[in-house]
């Protein structure tokens, strides 16, 4: 699975994208966030305040209880500010 990061989430993680092998225990976006947070101090800083994060599964906005079981691509980012 490909994981993408944007804006300050990308800066804290220190990478735009990562390829990961999804453990079976990871079923939802929230599980994935918890699992990613343990990868490095930068990841921990990026994921420490869940209320400031949003996610997309396969390029569609998704809530944290959405499944990631069949996803090709999951992204984490701050609330969007277009226009």
């Amino acid at each position, binding site marked *: 699975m490909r994981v993408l990061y944007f804006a300050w989430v990308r800066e804290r993680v220190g990478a735009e994208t990562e390829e990961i092998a999804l453990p079976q225990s990871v079923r939802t976006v929230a599980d994935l966030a918890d699992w990613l947070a343990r990868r490095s101090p930068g990841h921990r800083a990026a994921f420490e305040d869940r209320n400031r994060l949003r996610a997309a599964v396969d*390029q569609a906005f998704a809530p944290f209880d959405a499944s990631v079981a069949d996803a090709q691509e999951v992204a984490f*980012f701050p609330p969007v500010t277009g*226009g």
Partner: protein
Amino acid sequence: MIAVRVQREPFSPETLLGRLEALGGGAVASFIGLVRADDGVTHLALEHYPGMTERALDAMAQDAAARWALLGATVVHRVGPLNVGERIVFVGTAAPHRHDALEACAHLIERLKTDAPFWKRETRATGETWVEPSSPA
């Protein structure tokens, strides 16, 4: 005619309006967003999610076309570094009558703020900060 684009280079409002005017309706409505010099901001950097952004813009334009009697909807959003006063975004709609053109245009402007994956980083003399939405999404 649905036309959405994400691009680094500037756009020409005259060209974009001309295409909407050529659709044969009685009304064209448009909006141009500019980089504001808020609180000492000298420039802005816009980041987006390639692929998802284009899909999100296309979906919102299609939704607007389904909801109002439109002949065309255009959304052009710039990304990358932008100076104060530069144009960030163009939204334009063409319709047989003004009511549909104006309402659909206003609707698209609002949805751009909440439904498309763009992020803004402001640069001031004091440093750089990511813009937080004014009302939580």
